[in-house]
């Protein structure tokens, strides 16, 4: 072994929606994936490939049909979502989903922090507040002076930045980012992406990031996987990934797609 700790281990994970009906959909088809501690994996694939479903399976939005999920060598396959959330941070595309709009910035952060903060009676206290101010200041959005502002009054980018802090405030073992910049304007998206990489690099959090931006997928992180029809059809890292260009990746993708189509046709004949 190379001495690195295995962080996430997916073994033969499968999930079928509406089994036994005309709408039957094999959303995850025997997925095997192993992430080492500190891995930063970018995930690409067309719409409906099963990327979000993969995250849902890991985070526990539903239970999988087959297989096992191990996080830091602990079997979490049957744990409910809120228990897994102790070690898994998750960011969605919709900036409205990750924060409580009628609570203040400070209260939102305090809620996310209850996971790992010391046992105290009141939710808000001075030492936590100064910690919050510090991490807000690092965002460089001026939010550290607006801790008593209701989150519902913030812009989408600001809310997404707060959610990112909430997901990482308790040093999760795994961070799941599902197209978390897709709903933002280009400038805000750049900013959030920069904050993301800063936080991930600084805390060395094992991260999986779904993105539609193929260029970003190749330039960020240390590993890229491509999904299609509920399967991982490409998994590259290291030298091979360094040399790969966006065009080659796209060609590869359409080639794989065609191969699958011919297979289907062969079955039909």
């Amino acid at each position, binding site marked *: 072994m190379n001495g690195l700790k295995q962080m996430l281990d997916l073994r033969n994970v499968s999930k079928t929606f509406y089994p036994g009906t005309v709408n039957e959909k094999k959303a995850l088809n025997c997925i095997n994936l192993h992430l080492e501690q500190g891995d930063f994996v970018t995930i690409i694939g067309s719409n409906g490939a099963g990327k979000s479903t993969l995250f849902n399976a890991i*985070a526990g939005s539903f239970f999988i049909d087959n297989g096992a999920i191990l996080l830091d060598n602990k079997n979490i396959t049957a744990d409910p*979502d*809120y*228990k897994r*959330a*102790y070690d898994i*941070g*998750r960011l969605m595309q919709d900036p409205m*989903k*990750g*924060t*409580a*709009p*009628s*609570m203040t910035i400070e*209260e*939102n952060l*305090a*809620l*996310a922090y*209850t*996971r790992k903060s010391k046992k*105290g*009676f*009141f*939710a*808000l206290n001075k030492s936590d507040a100064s910690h919050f101010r510090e991490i807000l200041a690092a965002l460089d959005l001026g939010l550290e002076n607006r801790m008593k502002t209701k989150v519902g009054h913030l812009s989408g980018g600001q809310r997404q930045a707060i959610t990112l802090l*909430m*997901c990482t405030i308790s040093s999760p073992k795994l961070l799941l980012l599902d197209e978390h910049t897709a709903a933002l304007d280009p400038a805000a998206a750049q900013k959030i992406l920069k904050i993301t990489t800063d936080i991930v690099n600084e805390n060395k959090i094992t991260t999986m990031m779904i993105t539609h931006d193929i260029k970003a997928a190749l330039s960020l992180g240390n590993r890229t996987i491509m999904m299609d029809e509920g399967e991982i059809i490409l998994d590259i890292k290291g030298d091979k990934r360094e040399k790969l260009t966006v065009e080659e990746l796209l060609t590869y993708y359409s080639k794989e797609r065609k191969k699958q189509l011919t297979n289907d046709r062969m079955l039909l004949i």
Partner: protein
Amino acid sequence: MTLVIGSIQLGFLYAILALGIYITFRILNLPDLTVDGSFSFGMACAAVITLSGHPFLALLIAIIAGALAGCMTGLLQTKLSIHPILSGILVMTGLYTINLGIMGGKSNLSLVGSSTLFMKMESVFGSVNGKTSLAFLVCIIVIIILAVFFKTKAGLAIRATGDNEDMVRSSSINANLSKCIGLSLGNACVALSGALICQYQMFSDVSAGSGMVVIGLASVIIGETIIGKRSVTIGLISSAAGSIIYRIIIALALKVDLFPSYALKLISAVIVMIALSGPSIKASIEQYKVRREARNHLD
């Protein structure tokens, strides 16, 4: 004057009901119909225990009874995934039988001849002041306890559950537990209110709880309209104030024979209806204005 004092006393006692409604409807954002049942539940428990000579214990037992009723509704909603409205109706309906059982099969129970907390206070502070101060005291204590509770970690989790449940779950907090705690807390308040009303009016009636959801909601809305809802603490205070204002309005209207006393529930329903329809009426007016304005340009 006695009229106003009487309404203030009732206002404080029903304020505790309004606080319960504020917790479930506003903070937890759950339409909880357990209330009608848990109000009578608190009343029935209090009546029987007061009759046995323990007026203070009566209130404590009523609080526990209400909490259990709320917890039951919470379990139906979360563990059995029954629709929130139906969960409340099921518990409320079941409680009707339980309440009759507690009162020995009778639909009314008179406390005449037994000693209540109000009598104890009257013997110290005099008839009027005794009743008012007890009602005021209990109401203030409940508000303070709730205001402090909603600043704790558990309280924050309950507030967040009403605001964005997904976010609570992804912060590794058991949202189902938060709902159960919130529903227990709300219905404990409601039952306490029922118990106090029972000792105040010296009798318990199995159907006293009917319509309490709407009456409590009307108080909450009146308070929000007049005082506002900037924070939870202000929301609690405004709900209590709304209850007192509601009682005074009703008493004055009854005094000048504006409507018969049995019209109370219809009035409450209309108040809630008007308050809740405010935004859509405003939108209709806006739309009308836009249409007229556009027509001016077309001519």
